[in-house]
């Protein structure tokens, strides 16, 4: 197996008496989609938040591209190449799709303290942003304010932003949520190609999508990893069936 | 053309009234008619207009505006009166901070400013100006008189207190300039403060044999009421304006017997004053205050100068003003080199007459008193 891009060891986080993350080991290698599944309240979002940097773990290490990133803040992790999309769509609603992506491009260029050049006449921002929008199939909707985009389009846009950030790994939190079957299908096809750009840690409830896309699956219950491995192994794992897939037999 | 026409009309009215000699005089009166200090401004306005009415001076036109006790508003009004209404004379301002905002730039623009109340030390000394006349006092005058009275009364340990602003420091400096005894504590309160529990506790503990305070307007009323409620028997001395007619009713019985200093009182026995007090009561149905008397004098000063000189000839008009050839309600009145009054300051006591609290003169504090800043003024 290739060297992991993201490597998590013995990560734990408690809220009072509740162990939301309990000694989790997890890694992400180039070219794969690694799905993180589990029932509601299993601690998936808590785990993603610790990786992205919005929550601090109590113990354990998070290594990204070989570097321990426990002490880095969200913007710093983002600049290292950790791209994230949110469970609840998180974009600048008054801006167009294009300007949302341009913000990411501008951050990559490390140049937010420029006060005079108008961004809408700045080819060094617009060109890369349009290129990314084309790749996610949003080029035609580039000038539409986010508030007027459909749910699926916003998901695509979030991924476009992550792409524009030049992310070396993606953390996708329920990208299929709230999408119709048509949208899910398009997005599945898109994610399938995206893994070649950078590996994806995918949190998803849509099991069809998970089984169609994932190379590996990790199952989280009450903050603990109860199983982890190839898709077929997980499908067969009796403990997973019992705890999660609701197989009572 | 318009100017000519006006002159013609004035010429006509001159022969009728026998008063007006020349151009009409336009007076802008900026005074405080709303907010905590409104009582002072209302008395000033009424006293001023009463004098014009009594003299039948219809060659003097007055525009009155409320400054709301806000300096920036006073400045705007002054600009408007100078630029739009083209007034020749400004007057009316009650509070020193508003005067400091308006007066220096107004007198630079060849406007005559006659102060009927505020007398900040800055304008009496090095910054005195030939276009600025103070018909009331220099702010320190009454405090100096209070210091002198405290000596006479035999007080050795006095607790002194004023708000933390220039007129407040001037007040305490003025008191100390004449007081020979020991100041046990000197306190500066906040401007606009309404609760004096803190200071009253310190007075109770100080062992002083008198308290001198300068707290103008509502501050003084609040202090005196709270002081009365706190049942301390240390006697209080204040400047006359803390016990003037307009606020005595609000202070209530706590004011009875308080000694204060003033250059005027309604029982001063001179012809001008007797006529003024009677006319004021007749016209407005209340006793006149210090502020009314000062504004009344101010208006009479303008009338006296207008009878001698044309406002268009500024130099002559200034000279006429400086002569102060009018009958003051204070009796003797003349200007010093810095255009501030040289006058006698009396000691008054708050008494009850016919169920109304008022003041009675019980002695003289300082005779023919001139302010301490006159020497710094380069005018002759």
């Amino acid at each position, binding site marked *: 197996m290739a060297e992991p891009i993201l490597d998590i060891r013995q990560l734990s986080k408690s809220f009072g008496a509740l162990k939301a993350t309990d000694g989790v080991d997890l890694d992400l290698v180039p070219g794969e989609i690694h799905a993180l599944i589990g029932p509601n309240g299993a601690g998936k979002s808590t785990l993603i938040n610790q990786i992205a940097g919005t929550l601090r773990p109590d113990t354990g290490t998070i290594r990204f591209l070989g570097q321990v990133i426990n002490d880095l803040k969200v913007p710093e992790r983002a600049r290292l190449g950790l791209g994230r999309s*949110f469970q609840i769509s998180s974009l600048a609603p008054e*801006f167009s799709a294009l300007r949302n992506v341009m*913000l990411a491009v501008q951050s990559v260029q490390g140049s937010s303290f420029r006060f005079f050049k108008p961004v*809408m006449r700045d080819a060094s921002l617009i060109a890369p942003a349009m290129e990314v929008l084309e790749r996610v199939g949003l080029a035609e909707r580039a000038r539409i304010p986010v508030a007027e985009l459909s749910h699926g389009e916003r998901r695509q846009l979030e991924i476009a932003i992550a792409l524009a950030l030049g992310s070396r790994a993606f953390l996708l939190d329920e990208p299929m949520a709230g999408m119709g079957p048509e949208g899910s299908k398009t997005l599945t096809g898109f994610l399938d190609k995206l893994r070649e750009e950078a590996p994806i840690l995918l949190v998803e409830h849509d099991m069809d999508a998970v089984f169609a896309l994932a190379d590996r699956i990790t199952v989280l219950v009450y903050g603990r990893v109860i199983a982890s491995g190839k898709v077929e192994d997980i499908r067969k794992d009796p403990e997973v069936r019992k705890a999660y897939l609701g197989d009572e037999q | 053309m318009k100017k000519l026409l006006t002159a013609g009309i004035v010429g006509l009215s001159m022969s009728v009234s026998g008063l007006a000699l020349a151009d009409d005089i336009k007076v802008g009166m900026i005074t405080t008619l709303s907010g905590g200090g409104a009582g002072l401004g209302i008395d000033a306005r009424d006293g001023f207009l009463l004098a014009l009415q009594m003299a039948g001076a219809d060659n003097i036109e007055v525009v009155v505006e409320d400054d709301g006790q806000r300096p920036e508003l006073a400045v705007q009004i002054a600009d408007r009166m100078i630029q739009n209404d083209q007034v020749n004379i400004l007057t009316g301002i009650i509070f020193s901070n508003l005067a400091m905002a308006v007066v220096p730039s107004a007198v630079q623009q060849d406007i005559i400013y006659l102060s009927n109340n505020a007398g900040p030390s800055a304008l009496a000394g090095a910054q005195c100006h030939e276009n600025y006349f103070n018909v009331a006092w220099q702010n320190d005058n009454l405090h100096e008189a209070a210091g002198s009275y405290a000596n006479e009364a035999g007080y050795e340990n006095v607790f002194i207190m004023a708000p933390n602003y220039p007129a407040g420091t001037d007040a305490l400096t003025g008191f100390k300039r004449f007081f020979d005894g020991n100041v046990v504590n000197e306190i500066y309160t906040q*401007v606009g403060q309404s609760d004096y529990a803190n200071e009253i506790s310190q007075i109770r503990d100080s062992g002083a044999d008198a308290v001198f305070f300068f707290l103008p307007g509502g501050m003084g009323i609040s202090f005196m009421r709270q002081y009365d409620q706190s049942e301390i028997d240390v006697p209080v001395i204040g400047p006359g304006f803390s016990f003037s007619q307009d606020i005595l009713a609000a202070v209530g019985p706590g004011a009875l017997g308080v000694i204060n200093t003033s250059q005027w009182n309604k029982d001063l026995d001179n012809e001008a004053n007797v006529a003024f007090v009677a006319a004021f009561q007749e016209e407005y149905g209340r006793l006149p205050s210090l502020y009314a008397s000062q504004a009344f004098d101010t208006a009479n000063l303008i009338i006296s100068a207008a009878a001698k000189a044309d406002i268009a000839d500024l130099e002559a008009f200034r000279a006429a003003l400086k002569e102060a050839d009018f009958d003051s309600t204070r009796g003797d009145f003349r200007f010093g080199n810095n255009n501030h009054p040289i006058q006698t300051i009396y000691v008054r006591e708050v008494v009850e007459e016919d169920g109304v609290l008022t003041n009675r003169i019980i002695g003289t504090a300082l005779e023919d008193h001139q302010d301490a800043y006159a020497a710094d003024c380069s005018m002759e």
Partner: protein
Amino acid sequence: MTMNRETIVNISLALLLLAIPLIALQLNSPFYVTLATRMAILALAAVGLNLALGLGGMVSFGHAAYFGVGGYVAGILAHHAFSGLPLDFGLFQVPGTNMMPIIWVVAILVSGLLALFIGAISIRTSGVYFIMITLAFAQMTYYFANSWPAYGGEDGLSIFVRNQFPGVNTLRPLTYFFICYAILLAALVLFAAIRDSRFGAALQAARQNEVRVATVGINANRIRLAAFVISGMITGLAGALYADLNRFVSPSMLSWHMSGEFIVLIILGGVARLYGPVAGAMLFVMFEFLLGGMTDRWQFFLGLVLLGVVLLARGGLVGWLAGRARHG
């Protein structure tokens, strides 16, 4: 660039403001020149606030602090120029000056430093806390100016003769209007440039969605602090001009009513709109002058109008004239 509706509204407003004093002189009522100057200066102060409040979503209820400090810089430097005594900082001494350009630079620097200090503490908070903290800091400067014995305390400080600008006579009301008007236009150009720049993009994005800004790797608080400082600087410059207009500074320039008025100007004109502050200041000063001339109770009616604007007519005058704002 094609002219959209907002551009037309903006140009009309700019021309209207320019026309007021010119017409006033024709009618021989020079006071209207002073009135128009007041409009320009208040608009400038509100342009400053609009940067923080409109673009950055930082509801500062304490911008009077920068306005007043700018005013005091003008007052104090002029005071020392007049008296001939230098300002004594113990270790070194600085002479006073009555040259406007120097005064402006100092006013901008000093108010910027104050904004840096206040902003550094306040920006850590958000929502109501931010409103209250900026208010409380402004109150602190108010009480400081009020009770510090040097420079007049509550009495304020007079500038005996208006400060000077090389080559022109600032004592002429029209000349001074042109100076203020030119600075206002310059500030509007700066505002537009910042709004359309990368910095402006990050600032506006931080207002819309703070999490998003962090996730793309931008430190929102640093952007905000920078915007807050620039905002304070512009308002501080306006304060220096205001002091010279009135030839007087006092703690009332620092009062919370002043801070409230700046917010009112922006809302009346239109939040985050380039010419919102200009429209707001023109409306406000006109309202004050016309209604104030008719009734002493004008503030009562101002209250009713404000309430109506907030409850019914969001978007202000520019919003009403030019329709909803657009972001490219």
